[in-house]
């Protein structure tokens, strides 16, 4: 593998992705900002005042890390799935397929693009959150590393979706039927200690729970699960999904006839 070729190729894909996000900022940055503002107003401010404390924090404070994480993962996913599927649909994925760049570089470039969009939206949502409540980061390294890793997981998942998608409907199936339910059931709005024991155990099978809780631990210093275990699970997903994508591209699935 020619490292220089792949490094320049990687930078090119990332640059292209960032330009795309910025160019269509009304579609990429504004909608999550509006949605999250509504979450903060309705759940945090109006309903949250009646809920009282959650794990010793005001409800607004408690849900803020989860809402930031939710915006990061949905946007990382959405960026990669729409960009790569768009490239397939418009056939300009061929520009990359015929080039000497490795498939690993193609994946990493798109994932980096997804992570950057996730972090951009996450930053906007954090600023919005700070207008509603006070947040002080307890563990900056955990906060940053977990948001990046979670973003990578969902960017990689978006890539898998894009590889298999054959029409535009296919790129909304997973977000609608899997991603959104798992996010809502992943402890964004509640502590799993509120659930009956059976549902607590069921919740432990939801990977988003670990991401949300580890991120919340980074910011608030409280978590329903072990942080070490969260890193293990998220790391496993990053490695597993990257390998899966690599195998798919190496076999030409979705990109070659």
């Amino acid at each position, binding site marked *: 593998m020619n490292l220089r070729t792949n*490094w320049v*190729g990687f930078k090119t894909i990332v640059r292209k992705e960032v330009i795309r996000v910025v160019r269509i900022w009304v579609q990429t940055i504004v909608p999550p900002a509006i949605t999250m503002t509504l979450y903060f107003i309705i759940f945090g401010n109006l309903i949250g005042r009646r809920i009282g404390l959650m794990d010793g924090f005001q409800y607004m404070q408690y849900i803020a890390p989860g809402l930031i994480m939710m915006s990061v993962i949905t946007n990382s996913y959405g960026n990669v799935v729409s960009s790569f599927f768009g490239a397939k649909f418009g056939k300009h994925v061929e520009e990359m397929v015929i080039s000497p760049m490795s498939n690993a570089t193609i994946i990493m470039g798109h994932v980096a693009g997804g992570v950057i969009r996730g972090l951009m939206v996450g930053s906007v949502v954090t600023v919005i959150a700070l207008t509603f409540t006070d947040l002080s980061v307890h563990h900056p390294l955990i906060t940053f590393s977990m948001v990046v890793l979670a973003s990578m997981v969902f960017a990689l998942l978006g890539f898998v979706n894009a590889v298999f998608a054959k029409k535009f409907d296919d790129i909304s199936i997973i977000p609608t039927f899997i991603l959104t339910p798992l996010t809502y059931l992943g402890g964004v709005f509640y502590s799993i200690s509120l659930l009956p024991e059976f549902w607590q155990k069921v919740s432990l099978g939801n990977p988003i729970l670990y991401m949300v809780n580890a991120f919340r631990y980074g910011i608030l210093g409280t978590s329903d699960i072990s942080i070490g275990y969260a890193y293990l699970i998220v790391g496993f997903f990053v490695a597993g999904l990257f390998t899966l994508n690599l195998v798919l591209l190496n076999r030409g699935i979705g990109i070659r006839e």
Partner: protein
Amino acid sequence: MLPIVTYTIRVEMQALSIKNLTKTYANGVEALKGIDFTVEPGDFYALLGPNGAGKTTAIGIVTSLVSKSGGKVEIFGHDIDTDLEAAKSCIGLVPQELNMNLFDTVLNIVVNQAGYYGIERRVAMQRAKIYLGELRLWDRRNDVARNLSGGMKRRLMIARALIHEPKLLILDEPTAGVDIEIRRSMWNFLKQTNEAGTTIILTTHYLEEAESLCRHVAIIDEGRIIEDASMSAILRKLQREIFVLSLRDPIHAAPDLKGLETTLRDEFELEVAMSAGDDLNSLFDKLSDVGITVLSLRNKTNRLEELFMGLVAGKPAASA
């Protein structure tokens, strides 16, 4: 101790070598049934065939857009099975269908493509100026691609394919749907590119284009190569040619030229059918004998087209 003398023997490798290449699609369609051909460095090579013959599949395999079922492909000595990265570096592709991000700018499309080949942006910008300039697109560099005309989009794909300065340029019907003026300017550009040392493989339905540009022709039909020879050798196979003569003075009946078949198109145009071996000097002598002065002559149909129809459609060559 005697000095050790080493000799290096440089073997000129082929630009493209295809051996027993097969492709069967998942739906069972056998697109390629074991084709073999080679393209020499510096050649301008035409790959012709009717729709569905297997041309685009063969090009797709060479450029990694289609997986092969069997056979061997080498590009400048790099086997696509074992040395794919190096093989890909040698190729520039202008595909049949538009395959660019129509929402991106002309400049970005070309410069990004260079990036995928490991060319730094600074160098890519310099090259973009050269190639977009030569293809008369530099003034439109900041326009999004969808706002370009059809001919401009085709030229953009050529600029994009050349930005990494490939040794082998593959053009799959590059002038389809392009008006004659732009087509001819593209021909000139491709001739210059070839003269500068780039090996070119061209597929086209305009056989005049192939005859005008290419030095070597392979004809593929139903997944098999049915002809593979130099352009001059292949054209010599024509058994019969029909010329249309423009006359200075009107005539009212086709003249009787011994051994030649003549047909009057109108009072100023005469068709003469000639067999292989007949020479034009004797034709002009015979015409002079009957008092006919010829102002100009042309082939009734493109010669390669005659041959192509004979080979592919099973029609006799030059059956007018």
